[in-house]
């Protein structure tokens, strides 16, 4: 049986979070009435001209700086000519020959905690097309041009990925970078990130690439993996049956979970690219680029490294916590509030993430604010409450109790009387009471062999904790009980 190697390259289209379109002043907000956000420029009316949105340029440059890419001094918009009803001008304004972002690289982290660098060939700015609507028009087609002219950054990778998992990790890394930078909302369900996948296979050890298929319409992390898995299997089967892979564009159908041929190379358009005469070349001076560089936040890879080296977190914890800007920021607030990175990490990745997952919430939607969780962890660390009470406090915070302020945990501890009792006099009194109330159990305990007693003491601990309504310090209870029971 021949061993096959998969080769994958991705073209990721990221919708930039500008307020207005790339070449017009119309709004880019999602979900408006069809054609209510398409101005004369977006409609491609006779005589209109494009004006470049400076915000889109700044966002593209930030991305380039974020992946350590070259930022060429001059980039040029080209027209990509083809006819389609939702392409109002009959051409898409894009950047074919001189993209705004040159070669760079993205670090991905794999499940085993290892990292790998994926090279980015370039990234270019372009405008989105509108949408063709085929339902509700009785055999006719409706056109909605709200999306026409929305700024896109197309990020083209080198064919550096070798598995569907790596491709998904790359897509996640891009997602993290653009959301860290605040240049996209990264909302895949609303189409803010879309992906075309180039897939080929080759016999293991062979250097030359196999013939690739481009799979379009792969619009979620999950679909990327599934589309690649299907496509790899299809190509290997084809080759092993003595066939050949044809260079073609295929469409991923998530419902059927398969890819289907759209057009072969022979049917491909000749897009007749040429420089757009309505737009001047974009010239970026060094000062402008340096200024943008100075505004960059710490990005996922740096953050991951810092979490490991400075905070002493494990590679896995660091990579989970750095995976999104929201998660990382939440964690850092918790850490600062409680003063202990490991405990903060455990709470964010454990109790909080568990609760968020159960309710299917993103961390931005957490009912427990990071300061509040930090306040809670601080009380665990300074022994004000024990672990059991902490879970109660977390649940109360989750339910919105405690007054909503940063010190909500303290308010809850106070109101519920959860403060750990460490006064040995008080604990002793409770223990004496429990011993007095449980003559049978005391007798059994005292009759038992010393090595059995360890288990039997649990009953008394439980009774004392119950009597203290959970507030007694369990270690203290344990020690004092042992002392008293073993005395006689």
């Amino acid at each position, binding site marked *: 049986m021949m061993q096959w190697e998969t080769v994958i390259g991705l073209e990721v289209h990221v919708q930039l979070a500008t307020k207005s379109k790339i070449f017009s002043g119309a709004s880019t907000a999602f979900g408006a009435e069809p054609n209510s956000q398409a101005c*004369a420029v977006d*409609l*491609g*009316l*006779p*005589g*209109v*001209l*494009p*004006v*470049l949105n400076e915000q889109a340029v700044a966002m593209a440059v930030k991305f380039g700086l974020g992946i350590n890419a070259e930022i060429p001094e001059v980039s040029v918009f080209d*027209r990509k*000519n083809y*006819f389609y*009803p939702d392409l*109002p*001008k*009959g*051409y898409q304004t894009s950047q074919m020959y001189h993209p705004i972002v040159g070669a760079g690289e993205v670090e991905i982290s794999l499940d085993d905690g290892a990292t790998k660098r994926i090279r980015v060939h370039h990234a270019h700015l372009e405008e989105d097309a509108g949408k063709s609507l085929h339902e509700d028009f009785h055999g006719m*087609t409706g*056109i909605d041009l709200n999306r026409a002219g929305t700024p896109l950054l197309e990020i083209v990778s080198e064919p550096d990925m070798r598995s569907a998992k790596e491709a998904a990790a790359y897509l996640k890394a891009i997602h993290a970078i653009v959301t860290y930078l605040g240049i996209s909302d990264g909302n895949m369900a609303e189409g803010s990130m879309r992906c075309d996948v180039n897939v080929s296979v080759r016999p293991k050890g062979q250097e030359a690439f196999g013939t690739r298929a481009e799979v379009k319409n792969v619009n979620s992390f999950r679909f990327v993996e599934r589309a690649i898995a299907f496509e790899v299997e299809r190509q290997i089967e084809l080759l092993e049956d003595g066939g050949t892979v044809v260079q073609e564009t295929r469409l991923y159908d998530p419902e059927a979970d398969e890819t289907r041929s759209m057009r072969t190379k022979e049917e491909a358009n*000749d897009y*007749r*690219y*040429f420089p757009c*005469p*309505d*737009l*001047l070349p974009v010239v970026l001076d060094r000062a402008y680029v340096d200024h943008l560089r100075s505004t960059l936040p710490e990005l996922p890879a740096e953050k991951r490294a810092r979490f490991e080296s400075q905070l002493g977190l494990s590679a896995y914890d660091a990579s989970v916590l750095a995976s999104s800007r929201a998660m990382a920021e939440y964690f850092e607030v918790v850490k600062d509030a409680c003063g202990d990175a490991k405990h903060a990490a455990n709470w964010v990745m454990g109790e909080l993430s568990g609760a968020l997952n159960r309710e299917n919430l993103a961390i931005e939607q957490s009912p427990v604010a990071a300061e509040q969780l930090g306040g809670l962890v601080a009380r665990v660390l300074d022994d004000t409450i024990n672990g059991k009470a902490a879970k109660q406090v977390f649940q109360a915070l989750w339910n919105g109790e405690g007054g909503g302020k940063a010190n909500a945990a303290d308010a809850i501890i106070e109101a519920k009387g959860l403060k750990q009792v460490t006064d040995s006099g008080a604990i002793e009194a409770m223990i004496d009471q429990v011993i007095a109330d449980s003559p049978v159990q005391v007798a059994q305990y005292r009759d038992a062999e010393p090595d059995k007693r360890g288990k039997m003491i649990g009953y008394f601990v439980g009774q004392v904790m119950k009597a203290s309504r959970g507030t007694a310090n369990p270690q203290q209870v344990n020690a004092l009980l042992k002392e008293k029971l073993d005395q006689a």
Partner: protein
Amino acid sequence: MHDKTLTQLARALADGEVSSRELTQTLLGRIERLDGRLNSFISITHERALAGADAADALRAKGQAGPLTGLPLALKDIFCTNGVKTSCGSKMLDNFIAPYDACVVEKLKAAGTVSLGKTNMDEFAMGSSNENSHYGPVRNPWDLDAVPGGSSGGSAAAVAAGLVPAAMGTDTGGSIRQPAAFCGITGLKPTYGRVSRYGIIAYASSLDQAGPMARTAEDCALLLGAIAGHDLRDSTSVARGVPDYRAELGESLSGLKIGLPREYFGDGLAPEVEQAVRDAIKVYESLGASVHEVSLPHTHYAIPAYYVIAPAEASSNLSRFDGVRFGHRCDAPSDLIDLYKRSRDEGFGSEVKRRILIGTHTLSEGFFDAYYTQAQKVRRLIRQDFLDAFEEVDVLMGPASPTPAFDLGANKDPVSMYLQDIYTIAVNLAGIPGISVPAGFVGSRPVGLQILGPHFAESQLLNVAHQFQQATDWHQRRPALAEESA
């Protein structure tokens, strides 16, 4: 009134000799009586014009009139005009009512001018004779058997016939200067970027430029001041102050260095045209200018380069006319491809189709470098020719066209038609300004002298033209038709 210049009319309005309404009515009457023979208008906006004139008169009564308030003019039908049919001379846009004003239209309205209507033109500004219009050819007021030139033929004929004192044109390869020459009027193509292209239906975006067509250089100066300037909606318009273009009109030409490009006086130039141009140069010498022979060595590459670049841009610019959102749509399309094919086949005329095909071909994979890239290199050389020449001389002079206006139907072969633009096309490729002024006649047909200057030297160019018009009366000649009152 109808044979006065814009400047004279401005004075008459200011002095209360005539109201804008009277002027507008007079001219609308002339259009009604005379334009049947010329076909220079596609749309006459009678009511809007009168309303505009009344508004102008009211403004004047309040003492708020500016220098252009109440002056009537016409717009080439390539300028989008809010609420008015804007056809670009094409069946494709016969049903298109523009929903917005072009920047030029906006500025002219703001200055208080009154548009009487939209003038005929070669379809999508592609042509040198105005025979390529969906609305029929325009005739030359000097000789109804002759073409008026193109593509701004309607604007030129309307001014020459005294239907309007001025009109707006656009010039991509000579479309203001050549019809101005053929019709015996003055036409200025400003520097590329001087006037906003916003709202001008694009033919070749890197070459298109709007400019005034009128009786005198002084009138052109008045109008250029109103339409020039930076516009944020056109990224290729230049952020540069607009001078008072009339301020330099009194300057002496003593010491002016005139360059005569050797290549503009060679084969193909009609001897009578050459004679008229050489006579005009003598006038300049008498005004104190010196004459120098210069060379623009890449001149003969201008037409081939233009006919790669302009059709390439046009093929893309005209893709939006697809029958989907506006413009002509074929009846009962069977599917999308049928909709595209028939809408475009029915909507476009043959010259437009020819240029779309040329442009589509030259941009195609495998041909792009040989044509488009090469033509852009030639374009840089042509521009450099001019920059080099302007190191030696102040202005260049030559004929605007190798022949006077030719007969309707005389140039059936597209290439012989393209060669008409030999002296005008390089100017667009270089982006410099040029003006054509009346400089004599061949029989009954006018000859134009073309004057070229460095980028943004419009003030100087207008003064050089103005001084000639102070010394000659070619610009005051009127065709017999213009004198008819009935």
